[in-house]
């Protein structure tokens, strides 16, 4: 009688292998599609130099406003010239839009993902603190309210203006106005989770506060935060575009989907392709991130996994 029980319990003591979680993730269609699309977009921007692109900043006045698919002779600054097919046409400076969109993906993806991760990270820390240490709550939340009172874009513009526009400063400038939103969400989640009986039950079996936060509170905030993260990621890519458009973001030497569209907007009625291709890539990225986020939320929550047989 003792042996099988001991065996069963010992067997149970082995933590569920990470492989199982991965398998479950990869079985989910949302994760598959969203993940694949995101990987594809990332690969395309990382491998841009090898995908038939030219220097995205190369200005060639002769080849202005070419339509998608046009072939033309391109002359570099060093005097060389070669024939190039403008798959997505060229802009009003004669720059190859295909090259600009591919290279632009690098900045846009980095900005989107970095802003999402950073604002989730800081927002989570501050939100957990505010939600759990009630003494700090009023002070922290009033500071956050203050931050939220300033329009996000305005705050970002002010922050970029403080420093020289560069990728890290743009990321930071977009992150700061996002943090209060994450803090509010986290705090609200923590406030409701801490009242759950399972948290009280954990307290009554002697669980320390840190462990309580890490094991019982944190995991239950994950699902809504992942969803929030995907929105932030998509939003950050757009804000970066807005900053570029307003001329306070990255200069057009660094192509981003944002400044490609910003520049193309002026000629949108005659040459819609200037805006369109960058827009399609942006839309695809946002879609991929959102689909992936949905899938993650579902698979990371054990309640959504297939119902097993009852013992």
């Amino acid at each position, binding site marked *: 009688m003792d042996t099988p*029980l*001991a065996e*069963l*319990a*010992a067997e*149970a*003591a082995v933590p*569920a292998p990470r492989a199982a979680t991965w398998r479950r993730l990869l079985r989910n269609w949302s994760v598959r599609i969203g993940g694949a699309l995101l990987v594809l977009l990332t690969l395309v921007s990382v491998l841009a130099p090898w995908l038939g692109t030219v220097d995205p900043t190369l200005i060639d006045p002769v080849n202005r406003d070419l339509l998608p698919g046009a072939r033309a002779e391109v002359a570099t600054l060093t005097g060389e010239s070669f024939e190039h097919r403008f798959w997505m046409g060229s802009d009003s400076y004669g720059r190859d839009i295909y090259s600009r969109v591919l290279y632009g993906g690098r900045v846009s993806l980095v900005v989107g993902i970095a802003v999402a991760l950073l604002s989730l990270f800081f927002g989570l820390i501050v939100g957990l603190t505010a939600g759990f240490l009630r003494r700090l709550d009023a002070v922290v939340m009033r500071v956050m309210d203050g931050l939220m009172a300033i329009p996000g874009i305005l705050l970002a513009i002010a922050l970029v203006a403080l420093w020289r526009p560069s990728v890290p400063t743009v990321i930071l400038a977009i992150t700061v106005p996002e943090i209060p939103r994450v803090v509010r969400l986290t705090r609200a989640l923590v406030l409701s989770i801490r009242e*759950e*009986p*399972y*948290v*009280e*039950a*954990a*307290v*009554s*079996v*002697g*669980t*320390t506060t840190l*462990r309580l936060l890490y*094991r*019982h509170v944190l*995991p*239950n905030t994950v699902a809504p935060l992942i969803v929030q993260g995907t929105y932030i990621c998509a939003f950050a890519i757009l804000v970066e575009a807005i900053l570029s458009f307003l001329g306070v973001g990255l200069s057009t030497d660094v192509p981003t989907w944002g400044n490609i569209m910003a520049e193309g907007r002026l000629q949108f009625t005659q040459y819609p392709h200037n805006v369109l291709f960058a827009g399609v890539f942006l839309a695809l990225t946002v879609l991929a991130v959102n689909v992936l986020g949905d899938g993650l939320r579902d698979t990371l*929550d*054990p*309640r959504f*996994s297939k*119902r*097993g047989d*009852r*013992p």
Partner: protein
Amino acid sequence: MTAAALRIEGLTVRLPPGADRTHAVTGVSLEVQEGELMCLVGESGSGKSIVAHTVMGLLPGNVRATAGRVLLGDEDLLRATRERLRRLRGEQMAMIFQEPMTALNPVMRCGAQIDELLAQHTALRHDERHARVLRMLEHVQLPDPAAIHAAYPHQLSGGQRQRIMIAMALILQPRLLIADEPTTALDVTTQAEILRLMRELQRETGTAVLFITHDFGVVAEIADRVSVLKLGELVEVGDAQAVLSRPRHPYTRMLLASVPALVPRKAPLPAGTGVQLRTRGLTKVFDAGGWFGRRRRVTAADAVEIDLLRGETLGIVGESGSGKSTVARLLAHLIEPTGGEIELDGERVVRLRGDAARRFRRKVQIVFQDPYRSLNPRRTVGAAVAEGPLNFGAGRKGAWLRAGELMELVKLSPAALQRYPHEFSGGQRQRICIARALAVDPEILIADEAVSALDVSVQAEILKLLDEIQRRLRLTLLFITHDLRVAAQICNRVVVMRSGRVVEQGPVAEVFERPRDAYTRALIDAAPGRGFAFGEGVA
């Protein structure tokens, strides 16, 4: 022979794919005669609410009735158009819901909500409607109808709100009234009043009533006839007296046997056991309100003095707001008292910090009411049960071995440790919660309404399990409940609480048979089905 107000014939309702069974109800046939009160009884998941919602045409879009007929008079409701159903609801049939807190619109005055029905369905003038609403409010025995007419729902008590719901349901004098667990969310004394009111109104108006409940006590109080539903199938229909006293189907028999008897079962403890836990002047005041404006103070526990004897089962009974759960949480050290003392084995244990608090926690464990929320959905059962021992320095292997033993103690398979809480039923989860509490070898186990959320048959099992565990581990049990039947079954002594104060305490037989306090007497009188001897089969 009276006519049938409602006739359901061979009703089958299909559930969407992915549900735990394919059909919510299969081949259910029943009749409610005019002027009759038919009780539809079943445990959770029996499909009783589905039947009610089918009749009202309120099924969610992905749940469909696939066979059968639902006749209201001569009209088949399953074939009625949405427009027709909308007309029928209110005029011909009405429904009262379980939760009077949420069934009323919080931003509309009560009178206006009733008036809306008249405005929609009748051509009465405004002053006529007003007079009729006032008459109805008087009819459902609400004090000061004019004031209630102008009141918002939050200004009324639960019982008053349920009266408003009844007024709303009956104002158009429908042929059929469906009441879906209308008294389940109410306190027993309020429940008794509402049941009496419904019975009176029904006799007076001759409305046919389909009364849905899980509580055989309620059935005994008000039913003319009873239908028993088990997992979507009708197993027994008959005259209420006959079904209650001579159930034919084994399932009905089992259900009736699971209802705890109101007759105290346990003898008081033999003299000589010492006091283990003692409270003196234990007080808890909750302050509500913000920085500005007026604060509300609620004295949830007011100078509570309780002695808990070693090895006994002490019940704390009372209605909602009596402070019984506050006392439980104070004793489990989950909240700090505002004043007073708690002594465990003669040692003061209030305002403990750090290690001392943890040592105390180890000795006193608590099981909560809601089995669905007491387990972290993201952690395995094993992680939950092993958490206590791990916190108190057990090794990983040892803790899991202990968890395995406890699973056997609460009659679950140790293999359950690897699963997640959502894979278990309510009763199984409550067993897991008990195992978790026992994992740190407590001396006192507090059960805070631990069986209140469970079906009656499951409740009987858990009570039996608690009794067994108590004897095996020589635990002291503090059992908090609003249900006098449960208290009668497992307690040696009871404490009756009201508005934060202890009004009476003593051996259970004494308190139940010769209550000294008027409130205790009222509480016992209000227990539904009091005149009926249930629970002959409870262990």
